[in-house]
């Protein structure tokens, strides 16, 4: 689980006429608006450092324009960096020869796009086969594999349709099948579900999580939606103006937001569905109570359990071991918004 798959080191991307000469300004701490005003260059990425473990889902989050798409496109080098390293499986993608890079894209990293980016002149099955065709897989085998993935995403029977004949959700299933079919162990998803309706989006998240249970790919998932990030991310990194402001697990980010930007992000989430007992429990064992709850249970389930058992407190366990306790009160405390944010609500009254 903790093998490093992707290591991003001191990555800079500056857009403009002479980006290399701008690195020293950015290193010196010049802000994005200042660099634009004084030197006419745009900061895309500002000194990004991130270690992405293998076989997990790394979410990268940020507001629109914060550099998410720019960052993910450096992993397969659809965008050339201004400075820095992108180590994947011990190799720096950013110094690969064109041939090596093409092979890397063919076999090691596949991508799912926000607007699907299917090939409109090809049928659904032919879209799924696209990566295999480019890998040079022989037709019969490719067909079998493509068919398998099409079935896995629930599109059996739509082989001969054209993308334009499908709904957005179905099109993105094709996009997902196309990416999975190449058997690459890195899956890059740039706001893959952002263009979909909320219900369909949840569907797609479920499909992805289900597949991941068994596939254990290294997934890098971009989103601007915190609920989505919390739902599927093992780790979350937050970008602002091209710089990384915080990385950590969902628990870390919700409990200890690094700055106001992150606080703004998390203020509307349902904390009861995110926070696990693990991160809010007291260390003291509970007073005699029969109720035992697992440490990775989220608060809203735990409250339901307490209420059903008509208990005021519960013991938190890790397997058979007692690790702490929670009370109804402590849970209510934990899900209340931090002080600063309540004012906003007061003003409505």
């Amino acid at each position, binding site marked *: 689980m903790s093998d490093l798959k992707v290591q991003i080191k001191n990555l800079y991307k500056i857009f403009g006429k002479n980006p290399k000469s701008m690195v020293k300004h950015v290193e010196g701490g010049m802000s994005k608006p200042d660099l634009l005003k004084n030197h006419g260059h745009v900061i895309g990425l500002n000194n990004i450092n991130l270690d992405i473990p293998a076989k997990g889902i790394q979410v990268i989050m940020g507001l629109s324009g914060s550099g998410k798409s720019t960052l993910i496109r450096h992993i397969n080098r*659809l965008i050339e960096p201004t400075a820095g390293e992108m180590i994947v499986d011990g190799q720096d993608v950013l110094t690969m020869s064109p041939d090596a890079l093409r092979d890397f894209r*063919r*076999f090691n990293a596949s991508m799912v796009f926000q607007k699907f980016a299917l090939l409109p002149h090809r049928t659904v099955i032919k879209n799924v086969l696209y990566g295999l065709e480019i890998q040079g897989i022989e037709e019969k085998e490719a067909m079998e594999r493509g068919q398998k993935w099409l079935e896995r995403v629930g599109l059996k029977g739509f082989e*001969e349709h054209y993308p334009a*004949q499908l709904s957005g959700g179905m099109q993105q299933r094709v996009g997902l099948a196309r990416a999975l079919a*190449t058997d690459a162990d890195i899956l890059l998803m740039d706001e893959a579900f952002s263009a979909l309706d909320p219900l369909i989006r949840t569907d797609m998240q479920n499909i992805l999580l289900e597949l991941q249970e068994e596939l254990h790919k290294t997934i890098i998932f971009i989103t601007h939606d915190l609920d989505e990030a919390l739902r599927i991310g093992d780790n979350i990194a937050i970008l602002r103006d091209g710089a990384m402001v915080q990385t950590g697990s969902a628990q870390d980010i919700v409990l200890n937001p690094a700055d106001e930007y992150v606080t703004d992000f998390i203020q509307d989430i349902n904390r009861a569905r995110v926070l696990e007992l693990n991160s809010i429990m007291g260390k003291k064992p509970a007073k005699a109570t029969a109720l035992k709850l697992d440490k990775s249970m989220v608060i809203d389930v735990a409250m339901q359990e307490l209420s059903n058992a008509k208990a005021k407190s519960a013991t938190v366990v890790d397997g058979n071991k007692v690790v702490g306790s929670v009370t109804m009160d402590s849970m209510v405390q934990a899900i209340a918004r931090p002080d600063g944010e309540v004012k906003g609500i007061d003003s409505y009254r």
Partner: protein
Amino acid sequence: MAEDSLIDWSKLTWIEPPVMGRQDLRDLKKGIDGSFRDFIRENGEWIENIFEPLKWILIKFEHAMVGMPWPLFLVIVAGLSYLGSRSWKLSLGAVLSFILIGWLDMWEGTMATVAMVSVATFLCIAIGIPIGVWMSRSDRVQGAIVPVLDIMQTIPSFVYLIPVVMLLGIGKAPALIAVMIYAIPPIVRLTNLGIRLVDKETLEAADAFGANKKERLFGVQIPLALPNIFAGVNQTIMMALAMVVIAAMIGAGGLGTPVLRAVNNQYLALGVFNGMAIVAIAIIFDRVSQAYGKRLQKHREGGHGV
């Protein structure tokens, strides 16, 4: 008239426009003509040789068409029209038009014209699409070629007939070249445009899956540009047909020749018949190629059920 005008401009003699001396001008023209003649004298032969295969293809093709039994030709017309348009009405119309053309004794001229236009279109496609692809890849190339295309489309055709005739004389090959100069710009322009309009994200997807240049071009760019490229083919055919009469002046033969004779001798009926035959061919080519172009775009239509 001079008294009526408010100002008598004729007093202002100094305002005469500057004109090159008569002698100098004559020398300049002579110089240009002379050096072009010298150029031809030195290079004419190999240039003519280059175009020899062109002439050969055209003549063979024309002979094949003129020599073809007319029912066979009608079957081919019906077949191609139907393949292109999937409309039996259009195919029937095409067949009837050609029967009428034969009835009015314009069969040979029509065959020569159809051969000329077909060969010209084919060559325009073969040359024009690669140029369009090249333009689409570089703004600098585009910047260099667009003005050339503009000139080719706006310069009166008679002007470039002169050097073409000086080089190659009168005959099929120079006529074909004159037609091609006029007809090639649309296919080049629309290939360039079509490829430039290909959705950036789709292209990025091809890159992300590791497509190389060739796979990008033939797997994504050209297929997605095809509707535009086809619009270019259609326009190229129409422009080639528009040149039929002018090309006849330098030896194209075909339906243009009787039209020229009709103009010189004021034979109204002859001119109108042959003119109508050209129009009929144009309409058939246009409808069939447009219907085919539309079918190429079918996959763009939304909605369920094919």
